[in-house]
Structures are given as C-alpha cells and as structure tokens.
C-alpha cells in the first residue's frame, strides 16, 4: 500500500509528460497491490535487461549510490540507504557498478559506494571495469568528488574487505576526498549500517542542501518482493542423488516449488536460502554446554527456545574468528588465547573447524542467552539456479554437492549442503530469495554463440542456459565444456546434455574427467587442446562463461591467455589485454565460488 501511495504522490517530479503519465495511471489503476508490486518489478526488470545500456550521470542528481555485489548483501545495504535518503527528499540514483560508466566519475560530486569482496580479495564481477579504469593511469583526476565507502567482507578470509580498501585508496590517489570514513563490515554487517546511514545522511546534508524537486520514484517501485530479509517459503518437490554410490562427491538435484507471480529469476541468477542445522549437532552442543534446549532466549527482539535458535537462526558450521574470540574470553584456555592473538593462526584455526569442535576441545561455562549472543546469525548460502523459468515456470532447480570433510572431528558436513543433501524431505519448506546476477547472463542476441565452461556443480547454470535457449529456440551455437572426476560416476545431467545434442541444441561438448585416465586432465587443459576451435568461436563473437571453484577459474583464465597467445600470435601482455577486453565487453563472464 505504502509503496503505491509514495509512487503516485511523487509523480509531479517524474520524467514522464502528462500524456504518458495519465496513460500509465490508467494502465495501473485496476491493479491491486500484489499486481502493482509485480508490475514495478517487471518495469525494473525491463531496465536491468540492458546490462550495457548504461545510465548516463545526471548532472542534477545530488548523489549517486553505487553498489557492487555478488550475493546481494551490498545491494540490500545500498538500497536501504537510498530509500532513507529519498524519504528525506534527496535526489539520487542507485546504480549497479556494471551499469555505471567509469568516465562519469569525473562528473560526480557525491558518491557512496557499497562493495563486497569476492574471490581471493577481488571486487565483484560487476565492478571489474570500474577497477580497471581506476587502476589505469589514464583515468581522470577526481578533485570534485567526495565519497564514502561501505565495504562488506568476511574476516575469515585472508584478504578481508580487500576490494573496499583498494577502492578507497584508488579514489584518494585520484584526488577525491572522503566524506565519511570507510567501513569494512564483517559478516554481521547488518548491525553496522544503520549507524553508518545516519552518519552519511547527516554529512550529506551539510554539503548538499535539500532539493525536493528531484525524487526518482521508480526506485521504490523496483524493490524486489522477497530478499534476504523477507525470504519466500519454497516447498521441496523433489530431491534425488545424481551421482553413483562410488562417486567421490555426492551431488543432489533439488526442485523447489515457487510462485512465479512473486518470484522471478533469469538464467545465471542464484538462489539464496536458509537451512536447518543438524539436530544431532545441536544435541551435542547442548550436552557439552549442559544447557537446556527448551529455555527461552531473546534473539533480535523475539523470544524463541534455545534449540529453535540453534536450529534455524544461528551459524554453527562456518566458524567465524569473532566467535572464537568471544569464546576465548570465557574459556580462558592458554592455547586458545595464543591462537586468537595471531590473525593468521586464528584464520587457519577456523578454516576447517565447526563450532562443535571449538566447544568440545575448549569447554567453557555460559548460560543460554550468552551462547545466543556469542554466535553469529545464520549466513544464507547461495546456489546457482539450474533451471529456466521460461521452461519450468513454477520451479527452481538446484544442484548441490554435499560438502564433507574429515578434520578434527570425522565426517564434518556443511550446514546447508548437509541439510539439502541429507536431511531435507520432499514437502519441507525453507526460506529462499533470488539473487540476481547481472554479470552472468545469456547474450541478448539469441544468435550469439556461447561457450560454457564449468567443473563440478559449476555446470548448474548451464542447464538453465540451455533450457532457456531451447524455450526461446535461440539460434546461437552452444558449446559445453565440463570437468569432473569420473565419467561413469559424476557426469552431472549427462542425459540432458545427450538429449540437447540429439536435438542439435548443443553443438559441441568437451569433457575432462580427471581420475579416469592415468594422467589427470582438467577443463583448462581441454580448452587448450581445442584452442583452434575455441579461438574461432571467440572470433565469431562467442560469449564465454566460466562457473565453479576458484582454482578451476584461475586455471581457465591462464589457459585462455595462453590460447590468445598461441592463436592470436600475441605476447603475454596483449593476450591478457585481449582477455580483459572480453570481460569489459561482457563477453567473458564468471561465476566463481
């Protein structure tokens, strides 16, 4: 309701002429709230459908909020800031880094950047061009610019908030001036940004007198219905293991039922989800701490039982350095004290331990509420969507590998993957939300050839890609390059690919199964082996996609450079330049985890 009111009342300042306006009003008057929200999402979708149609900086806009996200966290922060600013009447635009023309920085006066760090300290894909521009000495000076940065990261990674730091440093060297000190927020970022917002708006006010005239209403309308803070309850329709019993990693295929009027996604998008922790783990935690599961505790202003909090709300399997620190303070164990003193040893300590390992090895006394306060709230996990809504409207498919590892405690199971592959039953529901990934999208031109490179579960989005291209019967050629361990055990979705090949949707398929042959082969080697063909496709304008683990992505990147050298007769530097230029043009897209 609120949404509608805001939209209409603020129309005077809108960019439409009266004719257009009345037309629009006429078109929407019969819609109920549900429909309006959908329609607004739809309109926003139309905009975001043009990744390269970049919005030019509007001189009159007081302030630009630029975000670079992979998993949507940065977006949620940026959006909430933008909304508050708007409520106060600021004219601003909210823009994703990949829709932003770096040259426009020179025209900006007030810039707020919300950016996460990905990979091994890299900026998110969407910020690649921005960073490339700022790193080059060709880029313009930015004396006019005042900026603030909100960085999102995870201190259990080595290069904590490296992207936000680098950006900060780049902007200052270009002569820009900090408006508010940079924040490097950890996984509990949500606790930080309310204060930060207040501070930003406060200092913006000082430098920029209010100008009621410039409110851009479309922004509100564009809000996604379901996000991390308001997940959609999706029911599991089907789960099946799609690897054989002797496979080295157990991979499951899951199909969830969704309501297409409120959940829309595109191939390449991911699904964020919340999960239930392992009851046996919770038993262990209770027995080790001697705490009562039934005791009520308060958690984010709600009263819940301790067991429920542990099951649904708190993070138990990703052990975070901060949690270890807090635990150390009550456990006062000399070894532990030593560990937390040194960042490096703390990081390697958490790397392969879960909370249960911490408390079993270093007992401590605390009460129910203390335990809850000490733990982080559950991190939603992301999974590439393995289906296309154009082919299966009311479902979302995921391809989930069970994360198992022996360490300190036999058979550790990942929290989400353990739930999704071992414990969830058909008919169960869990909270999900779509995480848009504008930097991993099919080419707009349906006749553009694509090369899809993936290892392990990295193949998931390509199932969505091909379903989409089949549904739209796109004429572009398709080439799948897939790697895993054993042809007979973990050739994920083999029958799908064979059928697509039969129907000649899939024109070429290249495979690398590392453990079948005596000498190991991986996708990067396969690519190099078929470099003539690959280069030829690229010359034909093919888009190249890479999805999967960080290691694989690195290997592929190197072999791409080697291929450009070999085929294009380039030296290493210009080969790397060529590959980068593909990224800038959005013809080389990556989804790495």
């Amino acid at each position, binding site marked *: 309701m609120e949404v509608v009111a805001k939209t209409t009342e603020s129309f005077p300042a809108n960019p439409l002429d009266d004719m257009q306006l009345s037309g629009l009003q006429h078109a929407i008057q019969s819609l109920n709230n549900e429909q309006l929200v959908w329609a607004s999402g739809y309109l926003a979708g139309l905009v975001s459908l043009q990744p390269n149609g970049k919005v030019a900086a509007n001189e009159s806009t007081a302030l630009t909020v630029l975000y670079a996200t992979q998993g949507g966290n940065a977006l949620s922060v940026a959006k909430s800031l933008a909304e508050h600013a708007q409520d106060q009447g600021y004219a601003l635009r909210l823009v994703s880094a990949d829709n932003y023309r770096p040259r426009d920085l020179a025209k900006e006066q007030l810039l707020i950047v919300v950016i996460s760090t990905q990979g091994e300290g890299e900026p998110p894909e969407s910020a690649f061009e921005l960073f490339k521009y700022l790193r080059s000495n060709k880029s313009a000076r930015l004396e006019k610019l005042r900026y603030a940065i909100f960085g999102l990261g995870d201190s259990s990674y080595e290069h904590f908030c490296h992207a936000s730091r680098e950006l900060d440093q780049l902007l200052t060297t270009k002569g820009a001036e900090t408006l508010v000190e940079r924040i490097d927020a950890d996984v509990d970022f949500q606790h930080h940004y309310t204060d930060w917002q207040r501070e930003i708006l406060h200092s913006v006010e000082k430098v920029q007198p209010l100008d009621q005239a410039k409110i851009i209403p479309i922004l509100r309308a564009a809000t996604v219905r379901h996000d991390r803070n308001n997940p959609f309850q999706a029911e599991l329709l089907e789960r099946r293991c799609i690897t*054989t019993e002797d496979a080295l990693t157990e991979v499951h295929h899951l199909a969830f039922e969704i309501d297409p009027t409120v959940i829309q996604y595109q191939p390449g998008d991911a699904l964020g989800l919340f999960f239930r922790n392992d009851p046996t783990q919770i038993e262990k935690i209770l027995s080790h701490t001697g705490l009562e599961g039934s005791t009520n505790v308060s958690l984010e202003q709600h009263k819940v039982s301790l067991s429920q909090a542990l099951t649904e709300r708190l993070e138990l399997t990703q052990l975070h350095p901060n949690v270890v620190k807090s635990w150390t303070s009550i456990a006062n164990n000399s070894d532990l004290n030593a560990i937390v003193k040194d960042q490096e040893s703390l990081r390697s300590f958490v790397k392969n331990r879960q909370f249960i390992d911490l408390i079993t090895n270093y007992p401590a006394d605390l009460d129910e509420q203390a335990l809850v306060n000490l733990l982080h709230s559950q991190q939603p996990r992301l999974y590439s969507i393995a289906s296309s809504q154009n082919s299966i409207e009311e479902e979302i498919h995921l391809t989930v590998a069970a994360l198992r590892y022996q360490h300190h405690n036999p058979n550790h199971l990942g929290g989400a993957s353990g739930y999704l592959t071992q414990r969830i039953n058909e008919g169960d529901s869990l909270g999900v939300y779509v995480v848009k990934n504008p930097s991993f999208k099919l080419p707009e031109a349906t006749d553009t050839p694509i090369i899809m490179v993936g290892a392990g579960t990295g193949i998931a989005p390509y199932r969505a890609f091909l379903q989409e291209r089949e549904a739209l019967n796109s004429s572009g050629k398709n080439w799948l390059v897939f790697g895993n361990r054993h042809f*007979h055990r973990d050739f994920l*979705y083999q029958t799908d690919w064979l059928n697509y090949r039969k129907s000649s949707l899939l024109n070429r*398929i290249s495979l690398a199964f590392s453990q079948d042959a005596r000498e190991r082969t991986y996708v990067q080697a396969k690519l190099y082996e078929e470099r003539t063909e690959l280069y030829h496709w690229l010359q034909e304008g093919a888009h190249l996609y890479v999805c999967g683990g960080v290691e694989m992505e690195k290997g592929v990147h190197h072999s791409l450079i080697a291929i450009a050298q070999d085929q294009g007769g380039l030296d290493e530097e210009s080969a790397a330049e060529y590959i980068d230029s593909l990224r800038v043009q959005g013809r080389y897209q990556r989804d790495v985890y």
Partner: protein
Amino acid sequence: MDIKVNPNELIKANSLYLRGTLEQSMADQATGALSPDDAQISKFHGFYEQDDRDQRQSRQQQFLEPYYSFMLRARLPGGVCTPQQWLTIDAVGRELGNGTIRLTTRQTFQYHGILKRNLKPLIKRINQAMIDSIGGCGDVNRNVLCNPNPEHSNLHKTVHEWATRISEHLLPKTRAYHEIWLDGEPVAGGESEPLYGETYLPRKFKTAVAVPPYNDVDVYTNDLGFVAIAEDDQLLGFNVLAGGGMGATHDDSTTFPRLADELGYITPEQTLAVAEAIVSVQRDFGDRVSRRHARLKYTIERMGLRTFIAEVEQRAGLQFEPTHSVQFTSQGDRYGWVADGENRWHLTLYIENGRIVNTPEASLMKGLWEIASIHQGDFRITPSQNLIIANVSDQQKQHIENLARHHGLISKQQTPIRLASLACVALPTCPQAMAEGERYFPKFLDRIEEIAARYGIQKQAIVMRMTGCPNGCARPYAAEIGLIGKGPGRYNLQLGGDGKGLRLNRMFRKNLNENELLKTLDGLFHLYADKRLTNEGFGDFTVRYGLVKPVINPAEDYHDTP
C-alpha cells in the same frame, strides 16, 4: 511390390565394408555407447554393445545414461590356444575387461565390461598374441567348432587343421578391422568381398566339425556340419550336414529349433568348396526381410532339401556321395585325465558356466595363469564351456594336477547331472535375457541334485540346459531337460532330448516359477526312478513313457502340444 528389406541390410550396405562411423563413435567422449548403426557394425569386429541391466533403473534416476560397456568375443577355431596366448588372454581380461574370462559354448572366450576407451588397446593386445575377433559375431561365419577329442591326438590334429582352414576361408576380406584397430594402412582403391558381397550374409552362420562317437560340438545344431569319417586316426572324409539351429521366438510358431539334414559324403579336398557353396546359397537365397527367418534352416525349409542340395552341388561342382553311417554316443565332455596312446596326457577341467574368475572359494584365474606359465602343450576350450589342458608330458602331469587342485580347478566330486549341464550368460550383461542364466543356474542345480538323490538317480547323467531366453545359446532344445527363460524367475520346461544331440526336446510345461519347476521335476524324477528301463536315459524315458511326443519334423510338429 514393396517388401522392405531389413534395416540391418541398409546399415551393412552403407558401411563401406564394415567401417561405418566406428572411428567417430570411438572418439565421442560424451557417451559410453556407439551410434546405433555402429553398434550393429561392431559385431562384425567381434564386439557387442551392452549395458549393466542391474543399474539401468538407478542410473536413469541419476540423469546418467545406462552403464554401457562392451563384450568382445574372440575367434578361436576349435578352441585351441597356446600357453603363451593364454597368458595374454588372462592379462587382458584382468586389465582391460571386468576381471573375468568367459568360456563360451562355441569354444572361444569372451570379455565382458570393456569400456569404450579400452576397446582399441584390448583388440591390439590380443592380436599381438595372434588372436583376432573378426566375425566373432555378425552376419558371417562364426567361430568354427571342432571336437577337442583328447583321445586321438593325431586325428584331432588333422581335423582341427580343417576347422581352422574353414574358418580362414570363410573370413570376411575387408581390411576395416586392421585399419580401425591395428592402425593398418587404409586400402588404396576399392575394397571387395568376393564371397560375402557388401551386405554379407542375411544372418549369423555357424559351422562345426565333429568326430564320432562324440557329439560334444552338437554338430546337428549348426548351420553347417562336418562329421569326420576316419579309420584308425586317418581322416577319410566328411558327412556334410546343413540347416541346424536353435534360435526361436516365444509364441511365434513360424520360428523353431531345427536339427541339420544330411547332404552326403565328401572327401577332405572338397571341404572348402562345399563350405563356400553352402554359404553362397544362403547369401543368395536367405531371407533379407525378416531376420527372424533369415537363418539357413528356414532357407532350406523354403527351398526344399532337394533343390538346396542340387544348388550346392552345382555351385561346388561336385556330387555328394551317400552319407557314411556313424554312431554318436554322447553330448558334452569327459572329465579328468585321459591318455592318448602317444603317452601324452589331457586334463579336462569342469569350469562352472565357463566363468574364469578369482573368488574367495577358488582362484581359477590365478591357477590357470600358473599352469600356463609352465605348461608346454596346448589349451582347448570345449563346446561345453570347459577347458582341456592338452598334451601334458608324464613329467609335468603331477605338477599341473597339484596346481589345479591347489586353485580349486579340480574340486570336490561334481554330480553327473551338474557335469552334463549348461547355462547361458543372460543377466546382467545380455540385452536379450528375460530370466537369469549362469548367475542362478548353480543354485538351481543344488536343489535338483537333492531331488535326484532323493530318488537314487544321482549317479545318472542328465543333460540339463538353461537359457535366459528362447535364443538358445546353451543349446537347450537339444538337451534332455531344457529350461527356457520366459520372464523374471520363470521358465518353460522342455523334455525329450536323447542325451546325444540327435533329437530335439519339446515344451512340456509353460512359464513355471522355481517352485513349480522343482515340484514338476520332483514328480518326473520320481516317475523315472520307478519306471525306467535298464540304462534308459531320462530323455528317452520321457518319450517312451508318452510324457512328450518326439519331435520328428520341427517345421511341422515342433509347436504341437506334448
């Protein structure tokens, strides 16, 4: 008139003399299978595409194609090979197959579970040991059977030479095999297939050479049979037989097993001419529309025996002499040591289902490997899936026997019923199987032995053969008791063979499950124990006692009720 020729005919015709697109199929990494057409052509090269039927369902659930693998069947005329060759056969089975060697009812061996990428290395390896797989399967002359006849080494030598010459003479001439598997140079200019032509035969073709009084090759079940006529170890000539075959289709009375007709007598020099003439008649007159009716047995039924003989004589340029009368006394093998007069020893080993494998109970594969590493004679695979260690000297006899005992190749006394029995491969590899074969038969025999013992007939040999479908790979229609797979756990019960392979049996009860089978056989054994005449075999008894009418002319009377 537009009768469609069978699709297989077009595949052959378009295959450029059996090349097809095999090389592409081999290179295709996305599937463990071949293109459908190549899966037909591959048979001529000796291998079949199969999949593990036990895993079909689960893999479908997993979005995985069936677990494809290949079965390769070698060409080994008369089943003879050297110890050196055996060492290769063994190594290849362990390294490139599924770890087993399967001796077949046509005196050769098969590898199962070969993965596509292992096919070429495997074929190379056996060829390096001078064993090929050309025409191991396919619409050509198959492995030529020859009585392994340990008793008369000299005669066996001569007869076996003929078996080999027939096999070589009837080989396809295309170089496809050498090009694709052995990296042979592509032939310049056009290929030609003087005998077969580019569509080869309408169907498989099988040849056997028998040496009376032993009918261990079941010579009458072959398309073409040669019965050796000899005088004290000297080969005089052959009686020629044609038109035998087992394969039938359930509930299709236009199909039936058939025993071969006698065409007449020839001298050894005429052998190849006659063989070639008969093959060419089948090539020109065989049915190329319905593969079900394409075997020589149906061709002869259609042409009539006289016309057929005339055509053969005309093409071979000879007149058959009247058949010599011969006596066959038994099917199947004679086990243990026999001496052959030239102080050479021959040890016939019973290999259950012909499956050579190492199990916790017995290390058959290892045992044979050890024997092969010291043995100086030869090995002979028998038509009953058994193995003869032939031409052993006095000095080595004991050593070899010790090895055989140590590895369980000679085990506890088997009952005559078990020793005379045969089962086909069937599940999980055989795509045609409707019921179990070798995986189940041994357990079934345990029960049969109990029943036989109950009625005191356990000393009586009874030829009992089980197949998983009506194709008849264990020649069940020539047995005293035939069990023909009809569906999971269900078999047709056939009675009335004569235990010499000279009379077909007939269906007695249809579609019985295990209990029904055992109950019925219990009754029959009981009756036989009470009412048999002295030395009367079980099959003869069932006919004399009127339980089944004998099959006289299968084309007419095979499908009659018992």
